[in-house]
């Protein structure tokens, strides 16, 4: 089958574009080299929907951030992914900080960020409930439209709506080559050849590698992606109420500082740093240097963070563009019909659906006929069992008794939910795939107790053998052999 549009990469950018394009009479394919969506930058970041005062006025970043933030607010309700509009504070403590905050306020207003306010006294800040901030802090930019989100759930939700409405999702599909043949493209993948009239490159840290494939001998015309690694702490829910807004530090020439925020699941997230020296495109590792930086920097805004309550460290890779401080979103000048969405670093997550609208505009601009589908069916994420009322819980158990069996005790995730995750529109087939959908293993014991149980459930329900059960990436076996000489 020949597609109208092939999207490369099922992170938040590619999934959002697929979602928007699925609303039109188009044949769309979404190609992802990993075994699930949201597997790279989308799954490891601050999980913040920024208000949009940060990007310079007039940039694509500024426009798409402000638009995306309001779209995500609406979609969270419509599609039922975890999202909480808790607002953000950029906190400052001296004259210099005050000036920068005032400038951010002006910039935010120009960018169209709603309801921004500068809080000029400690009392105004404390009145918002922030009583645990460093005693020096006396000035803040308050952005009530900022929010927190479950990034992988949002991405999954967009991708599954796309699939539900006709987009073909190909997982474990690595793009090896792209050739323009006549007016369309031939994409060689690990799953065979895919043909398409247009290609949208949403390959994140690999966007330059993908672009070079189609540029062939003109590869030097490609932009360059510089991976930047950022490390985080994720603390126990006991610490989740330390702050009630996303707390940013005042950005300086030295960097943006680190943020402290609640997560949608009630944990406390602290980070990131930004390291381009120890970053590669695929390897996300934690270093003691970065972790020390995050600890020592974060306590400048919230001194009482108890790092002894840490339950997980992680690192994310961001795709920054060399010598270019905006998203690069445009049809290639070299190869017509090839559209780049490159350099999607922060606030990329906050743009989400706005990328989809942008893709529609670009396709229209190059003469693609776009007709809206008459019947569009939205699918909603299932509500977590633990968030249901007692009556709803009883009802679920009555329908399927497996909802009465708790598998993940830290997060109260039931067998019913785990089985359901294996049969979703985009089904989970790995321990971490289940985790991203239902939150199992996200808690204090980090899967120590529920891991072996979910391992068994995956084998039983999907009729897989032990060596086909992966922790996360394809091939990342959980166990290596049976005991007692059994095969």
């Amino acid at each position, binding site marked *: 089958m020949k597609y109208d549009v092939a999207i490369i990469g099922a992170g938040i950018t590619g999934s959002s574009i697929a979602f928007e394009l699925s609303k039109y009479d188009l044949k769309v394919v979404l190609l992802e080299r990993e075994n699930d969506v949201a597997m790279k930058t989308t799954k490891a970041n601050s999980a913040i929907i920024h208000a949009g005062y940060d990007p310079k006025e007039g940039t694509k970043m500024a426009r798409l951030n402000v638009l995306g933030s309001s779209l995500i607010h609406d979609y969270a309700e419509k599609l039922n992914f975890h999202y909480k509009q808790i607002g953000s504070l950029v906190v400052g403590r001296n004259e210099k900080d005050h000036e920068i905050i005032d400038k951010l306020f002006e910039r935010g207003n120009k960018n169209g960020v709603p309801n921004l306010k500068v809080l000029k006294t400690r009392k105004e800040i404390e009145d918002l409930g922030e009583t645990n901030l460093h005693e020096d802090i006396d000035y803040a930019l308050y952005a009530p439209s900022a929010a927190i989100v479950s990034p992988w759930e949002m991405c999954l939700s967009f991708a599954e709506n796309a699939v539900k409405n006709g987009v073909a999702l190909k997982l474990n599909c690595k793009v090896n080559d792209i050739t323009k043949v006549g007016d369309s493209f031939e994409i060689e993948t690990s799953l065979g050849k895919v043909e398409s009239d247009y290609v949208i490159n949403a390959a994140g840290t690999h966007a330059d590698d993908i672009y070079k494939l189609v540029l062939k001998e003109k590869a030097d015309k490609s932009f360059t992606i510089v991976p930047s690694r950022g490390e985080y*702490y*994720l603390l126990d829910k006991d610490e989740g109420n330390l702050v009630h807004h996303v707390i940013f530090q005042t950005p300086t020439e030295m960097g943006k500082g680190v943020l402290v925020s609640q997560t949608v699941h009630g944990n406390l997230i602290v980070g990131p740093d930004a390291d381009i020296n120890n970053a590669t495109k*695929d*390897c*996300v*590792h*934690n*270093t*003691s240097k970065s*972790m020390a930086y995050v600890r020592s920097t974060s306590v400048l805004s919230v001194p009482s963070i108890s*790092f002894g309550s*840490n*339950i*997980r*460290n*992680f*690192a994310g890779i961001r795709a920054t563009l060399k010598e270019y401080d905006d998203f690069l979103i445009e049809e290639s000048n070299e190869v017509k019909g090839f559209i780049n969405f490159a350099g999607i670093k922060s606030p990329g997550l906050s743009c989400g659906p706005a990328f989809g609208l942008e893709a529609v505009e670009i396709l229209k601009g190059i003469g693609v006929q776009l007709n809206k589908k008459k019947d569009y069916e939205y699918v909603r994420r299932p509500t977590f069992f*633990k968030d249901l009322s*007692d009556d709803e*819980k*009883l009802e679920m*158990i*009555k329908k399927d*008794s*497996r*909802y*009465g*069996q*708790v598998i993940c*005790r*830290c997060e*109260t995730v039931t*067998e019913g939910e785990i089985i359901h995750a294996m049969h979703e529109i985009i089904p989970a087939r790995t321990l971490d795939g289940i985790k991203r959908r239902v939150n199992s293993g996200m808690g*204090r*014991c*980090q*899967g*120590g*107790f529920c*891991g*072996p149980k979910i*391992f*068994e459930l995956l084998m039983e329900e999907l009729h897989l053998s*032990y060596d086909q059960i*992966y*922790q*996360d*990436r*394809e*091939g*990342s*076996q*959980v*166990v*290596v*052999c*049976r*005991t*007692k000489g*059994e095969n």
Partner: protein
Amino acid sequence: MNFLNVDLLIIGGGPAGLAAAYGAYNAGIRDILIVERDHRLGGILNQCIHNGFGLHRFKEELTGPEYAQRYIDMLKDTSVKVVSDSMVLDLSADRVATIMSSKEGLRKIQGKAVVLAMGCRERSRGAISIPGDRVAGVYTAGAAQKYCNIDGYLVGKRVVILGSGDIGLIMARRMTLEGAKVLADVELMPYSNGLNRNIAQCLNDFDIPLYLSHTVTDIIADEDNKRVKKVVISKVDENRRPIPGSEVEFECDTLLLSVGLIPENELSTKAGVILDKRTRGPLVKDNLETSVEGIFACGNVLQVHDLVDNVSAEGERAGLGAANFINNGEVKGDLVEAVPGEGVSYLCPQLITKEGEYVDLFFRVRTPTSNCKIVAKVGDKVVRSIPKIKVIPSEMESIRIKKADLLDKKVVVQLEAK
């Protein structure tokens, strides 16, 4: 929703919960219900298939499952009821538990008294912020034990173990016997956190080297970022900071973590039970009653034990405490505070009632110490002093004090030179 009343509700059917039921039953309570989240009773003992349990309690050496079976048999033909595959989702201060199971759906059960016996969980990689790649192949020793002893799988074939707690040592032997190669056991402290006998029979028997004063400083993934390929360890200085240049690399596919246990107190907190920052378990009186009237605690949810025999003893005392509460109500009168002094990291119980002749205070020392004495003081007066040839943090100590000697608001227990 169904609402049920029982005299004693016990949350958790592991060694602590079983002993609590036994203790309460012997004290005359008949309407006892144990709620167990797993399919079978016995808790973590079911996967602890090694021997070494029961020397104190039963005067013979049993394996974990055998030890559990003893208590299960002791409760057989009694009126103690058990609901298994049932999770307590919520617990209120008025002792109403919300219990869920596939069979019964949701129920609320109120106990005249409640015993918390939920056990503990293992600290994971995040709790100690191990640097390195984030890939498959890093497990807690307990998870590896479940895979191995219950489900029949090996999580890896070439293994490095971080932490020399007993579960880590036991797993070194288990995985070796099952055909894996255990390359090293790495311990941050200059001494082991496990029992000496386990170092002897789990490491030395198999020539597995123990690296004291070392820690894992890097985890390196294979080329495809799928699985652990190398673990790097470094020597640490006296401040437990890695010393650059001291790195040793191990080619392996697995890192097992045995880096401590944390009481599992989610439910306790929901009921408003106050926790002790030191033990991370409930603050209790010597009848093992928590800060919430009628709610008792025992076993690893109260303080992390190293011997199941002690868990059972504590469970039976909690059962007795709960029985007395059901029969006679709250223990009245002033309380004496038990305060850990020099060299002692915590004391449990933290509060002492006037009831009874004596109190046993349990604790751990901070560092290994030779030729010392454990001293209990009320004001300036030494009320008890026990000479010790050697004390180590991995072995729980106790001191018995006559209540008649507690003539002040607090008693301090400390370690002193001989």
